[in-house]
Each structure stands twice: as C-alpha cells, then as structure tokens.
C-alpha cells in the first residue's frame, strides 16, 4: 500500500502550490478574470517556462511524459487557486487530441506551439442538441475537391474566442449519434466562414459559439484517419473529465477549510458559530463527503494511470460523487457563510460558481450515473 508521490511528482505539486500561494492570490485572479482576454498571457508564458504546458505530452513530442497522476496534482492546485488560464481547453483537450491522433506534420505545426506556450487552442466538443453526448454531431464535413466543406454550429467551445487552433469534430458519415463517421479537423481559427461569438462563462472562464458556414479545409487538416475520430475524442473527453474532477477536489477542500475557519471566527450570540452542534455536524458531514471524494479521485487516477479496463467507468463514479456529495458540500459552504457567502466580494462565491460549472461540464451526476450503470 503506497499513496505517496514520486520525487518528481512531489516537486511538481510543490512548485504549483507555491505558485498559487505567491503569485495567484484571489485579488490577482479577479484582476485577470476581468481583463480583456479573460486570462493572462503573461501567466501563460510562466506556465510554459515552468514546464506545466508540457506536462501531459510524450517526451518524443517535446513533452514531459506526465500522466493522470501529474495532471491530478496540477488540476487540484488550479482548483485551489481558481486559475482561469485555459489549461483544460488548450493542453488537455485540443492538445490531447493532437497528442493521440495527429501526424508528425500536424504535431510540428500545432503541438510544438502549444507546448512552448505560443499557441492557444480549443476543442469544439458540443452542439446545441447534444447535451452531454459528445458523439451527437450534426456538423457536417462534405468532400470538396481534395478537401472538405464544414457546416454546422458549435456551442460552448471553451477558450474558443482566444484560440488560434480549433479542433473540430464533424460528421463525414453515419447518423447523428453514431460513433463511426466522426472526423476530426485541425482548423486555423481565422479560416474564412468561421463566425465566432465569444462570451464569458459563469465561472469567469471564456468560451465561444462557433458558426461554420462553408468552411473550406484541405485534406491535411484531418487529424488521424477520416471517420475514425471517435477513439481519440472519447479518450480526451475522459481525461478532461478526470481533470475537472481533480480541480473540483481542490475547490471542495478549499471551501471546506474556509468554511471551518469562518465558523471559528464568526461570532453570533456571543460565541463562534462553529460551537453550535447543528453546524458542527454538517461540517463533519461535508468533511466525510470531501474525503470520500478524494478517495475516489485517487482510485480513478490510479486506474487511468494503469490503463485499466475499468478506467472509464471509474471516471463516471467520481463525477457522480462530485455532482452529489460535492454539490452538497459547496452549498453548505455558502449557507454557513451566511450573507457573505452570496457576495461577489468574498472568494467563496467564486469557488461555488466554478464548482457549479464543473458539475455540468462533460455531464452532470445523472448523466454519469447512467453511464456507470451502462458500463460493463
């Protein structure tokens, strides 16, 4: 039995933790979130210099060869710091697709820039009708000479407004929800026919709606085999789900700690409110929810690191736990903070909002409960 980290892993966790403590306090975060791009290009350059943008990529591609464990360590700290930089969209999602399926030429063209921090990217994984089923794709790619014509609509493209590269799943055959017939395209964001509508999300991240009207792309832009995009897409959505679950854990632990701390300092009826048993028991309940979720995170991460056959199912178990026990923890943290919990000024409301966004991302508790039941 050994839950301890390797020396390299411990150093990575430590360096991110120190960064959050020293350079990413809540005030700085709020400033960045309110700035023009909604993230800090300077911070992003720091991330690249510190090697974090290289973490999950293979060494032969210029990465550090990290896996689910490294990603978990990083994302937990990003949760604690409420980091708004588009690590999930650029590195885990778009980068993840390239890592798994791109040709050497495509990696040279896009992945190198993603790793060195010079390219922002996004994966257009969702459409208005698809809800949480990423295979539900109406966007079409029709053969057009040597290349393709893309038509369709993508909603919630995380980092879509700031991205230089758009990874676009489109249907080249099959019916709307088939696994086969999905083709992945790497498309420069300034390609004509792409109409972007950028917006901030409730958690101060950035996203865009994309309207694709006769977007002409050449055959080289196909990532991997035509029609066979499902495997890479599914693997990336799984890793992204695991990543936001780890981030959620960082948020939950921070909310729990801040709530307990608040209850020790907030005086009502002449005593700290933390002396009331009614509140003590609830904070013990949320502590148990937190530790149970942490246990599931470790289990899931280890299954994923080992490439276990049950890895996908375990991600659904974790996501369900976060959407139920985690949601309760987040709501209790706000409630115990009283009126202060629903102010913009205090950080607790911003943790709550990011947590809520994560609850929905890649499927809520209901969705993953069904997926868990349906998994072998």
């Amino acid at each position, binding site marked *: 039995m050994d839950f301890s980290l390797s020396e390299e892993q411990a150093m990575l966790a430590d360096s991110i933790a120190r960064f959050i403590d020293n350079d990413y306090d809540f005030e700085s975060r709020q400033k960045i979130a309110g700035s023009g791009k909604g993230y800090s290009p300077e911070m992003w350059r720091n991330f690249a210099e510190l090697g974090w943008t290289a973490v999950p990529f293979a060494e032969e591609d210029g990465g550090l060869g990290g896996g689910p464990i490294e990603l978990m360590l990083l994302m937990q700290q990003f949760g604690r710091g409420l980091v708004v930089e588009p690590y999930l969209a650029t590195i885990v999602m778009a980068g993840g697709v390239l890592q798994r399926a791109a040709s050497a030429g495509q990696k040279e063209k896009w992945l190198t820039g993603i790793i060195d921090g010079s390219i922002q990217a996004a994966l257009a994984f969702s459409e208005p009708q698809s809800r949480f089923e990423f295979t539900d794709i109406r966007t079409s790619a029709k053969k057009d000479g040597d290349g393709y014509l893309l038509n369709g609509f993508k909603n919630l493209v995380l980092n879509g407004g700031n991205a230089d590269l758009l990874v676009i799943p489109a249907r080249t055959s099959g019916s709307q929800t088939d696994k086969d017939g999905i083709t992945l395209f790497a498309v420069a964001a300034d390609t004509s026919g792409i109409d972007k509508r950028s917006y901030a*999300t409730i958690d101060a991240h950035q996203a865009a709606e994309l309207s694709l009207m006769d977007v002409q792309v050449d055959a080289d832009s196909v990532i991997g085999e035509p029609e066979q995009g499902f495997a890479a897409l599914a693997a990336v959505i799984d890793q992204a789900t695991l990543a936001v679950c780890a981030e959620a854990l960082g948020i939950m632990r921070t909310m729990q700690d801040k709530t307990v701390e608040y209850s020790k300092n907030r005086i*009502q009826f002449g005593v700290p409110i933390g002396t009331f048993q009614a509140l003590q028991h609830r904070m013990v309940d949320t502590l148990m929810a937190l530790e149970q979720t942490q246990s599931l995170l470790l289990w899931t991460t280890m299954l994923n690191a080992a490439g276990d056959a049950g890895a996908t199912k375990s991600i659904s178990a974790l996501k369900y736990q976060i959407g139920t026990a985690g949601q309760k923890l987040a709501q209790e943290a706000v409630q115990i903070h009283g009126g202060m919990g*629903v102010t*913009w000024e205090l950080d607790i409301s911003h943790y*709550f909002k990011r947590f809520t966004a994560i609850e929905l991302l890649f499927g809520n508790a*209901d969705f993953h409960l069904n997926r868990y039941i349906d998994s072998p």
Partner: protein
Amino acid sequence: MNVNLTEEELDFQQEVRTFLEEKYPDDIREKQDKRIPLDREDSIRWQKILFEQGWAAINWPVEYGGTGWTPVQKYIFDRELGAVNAPEFVPFGMKMVAPIIYTFGNDEQKQRFLPDILQSNVWWCQGYSEPGSGSDLASLKTKADRQQDHYLVNGTKTWTTSAHLADWIFCLVRTSSDVARRQEGISFLLIDMTTPGVSVKPIITIDGGREVNEVHFDNVRVPLDNLVGEEGKGWTYGKVLLQHERTGMAIVSRSEYRLKQLKDKAAQSVHGAAPLMDDRNFAGKIAAVEIELKALEYTELRTLAAVAVGKAPGPESSILKIKGTEVQQQLDILFLEAAGYYGLPYVPDQYRVDFPKSEWIGHGAETKSSLIYFNNRKATIYGGSNEIQKNIVAKHVLGL
C-alpha cells in the same frame, strides 16, 4: 374535510382573474416571463394599478385603506397573482413598515406615512441586519443618542435590499445600552434617506447583480417624531414584523408556476434529441419536487384554515419558510440541469429589453438559470436563516 371554495369565493376568484386579464400590463408580463428585472417605474406602475382597484393593501385594516378580505380571499388573491407570474408587491413599505405604523404608531405618523405607502408614492427599505449582527439580530450596535430635539444616529446597516432606490428606511437602533437584556434598549426609527450623513454603498452579489447595500449613518440627525411607539420597545415591534415577513414566503403558487414551466421545457425535444423528461433520473427529481410542493400546498392550507378561525400565524410559518425555500432551491437546480451547457454563458446583458435578438444565446432564458440558482442561495439565509427558523420550531413547537 373539504377544501372546496364557496360560491362567493369562486366569484371572487373569477373577479381576480378577470382583473388580471384586463389590467396586468403586457410589457410587464413579458419581462416577468423572460426574467428581465423590473425597474422601479415598472413596480410602481403595477402597484398603482392594484391601488386603483383597491387591492393594494390586502392585509391592512379597512380604516387605513385595506381590503377587509377574509384570509381565504387573501389566499386566493395571492395564488391567482402567482398563477400568472405577476410581480410580487415590493414588501418593505406595504407589508413591513406599514403594519408597525398602524399598530404602534401615533395618529400623526399614520396620516403622514400610510397614504403614501398605500399609493406607492414612497419607496421604503429595511434597516435590521448589521455587519456583526445577522442571525443574532439583538446584538445590533447602530446607536441613536437622544439629544434635545433629535436622535443622533451612528452605525452601519447591511444587506439592505433596494436602499439605493429607497426614499425612507425603517431601522432598529440602540437607544440604550444600560439594560438587563440585549433585546431591551432597541427602538424603531424612521429615517429619511436624504438626511445628511446617510450614505449607501452597493454590495454586489454572487450573480453580479446589485440589489443589496450597506447603509452608513454618520451623525445623522433624526427628529424625535420619527420614533415609532415607545423608546426601547423596538425589538417587540420588529419581531411582529419578522412574523409578517415569514408568512409571505411560502409562495407555493409561484413554485407551481415554475414547476409547470420546467415540465413543459423538459418535455420538448431539442433538434431531434430525446426530451429530457425521458431520462428517468430527471423525471424522478421532478416528481419528488412535485410531491413536496403538493404537501406544502396542503400545509399552507392547514395554516390558512387555522388563521381563518381566528388563530394567529405562529411558529408554523417557520415551517412554511423552511420548506418553501427548499422547494425553490430544488427547482433552481433542476432548471440549471435542464439548461445543460446553456447554463454556463454569463450574459446578464441579454436580459434587457433592447438587447438584439440576433445576439441572444440559448433558446429561451436558459442562461439565466445559473444566475437564479446562485442568487437564490440567499433564500435560505435571509429573513432569518433556515437554521434560525429551526431554532424557533425547536423552541416553540417542540418545547426544547
């Protein structure tokens, strides 16, 4: 056992429905349904329509302009308004300070304040909570020192809804610290918001909105005439007020309206995808709320039946507040779940009348669902948090 309405009550119900069909303005209805916030002028216009009908002050005694309705009529009226999602009366003047003034105020105060409240000419806000005094309201520190011809008020009130729109504020202030119990020495004072030394600072809420404020009093001179009732008895008056606040919170019919909206939405298919209602998990959660809401409707009816035979609304109103707000919040999260990824865009600007339709994100008001979920976490915190409500039930119902 019979919950049927009498002939007269059915006639009255029809009268209310006819009135709403004819007089509820379309533009306000549209804003309500699209969840576009009403501005002050909208609220006043609607309240004046009710006033002209003689239906503004449904709880007041007839002599001051009240309706003289039976408890059942008041219930019918509230339900019918809720059933068409008509705006709720801004409570601070009509439902909160007016009952204190006509119960404990002197004749001059009644003449001075009640007609303007009745006609919605003057906008009020409530100065109870302070930064250090939330659930423990009796610890409040805002001081009113009695001078020759005025009180000198110093202190800070917080969570003051609509203070930035208000003309007057009613406050609980400390007029004496030399008392055996903290509840003594508190007085009920009416303060003109334009008095020098009164300043209002916004508190931005979780959803980015401005509805609450801090109100600062810096050597504010308040005429002695603005004291309601006896000095040092303000706590007793304030408690009556809180009871009034709690009885207005169950809002069953409004939750029923929302539940129906949600079910309609969940039954629809989006671009050929299966309707959300086909998901047994989601349908099960809808059913659970529906059952809870039905129970709440009958709990409210039982309270109403007690009031109808002359019993005062007591601690049972705490039960309505607790369950009523819980049901609201369950609905909030189901709306967000139904919105899916359309719950994520933060686009409050699109909920303005002049927002261009071509820029709109979502099919309806889905992008509002997250903001409502966030904002309405307050429902279990304000007006006496649900923890405080449970203390009241434990003490007064269970005798613990």
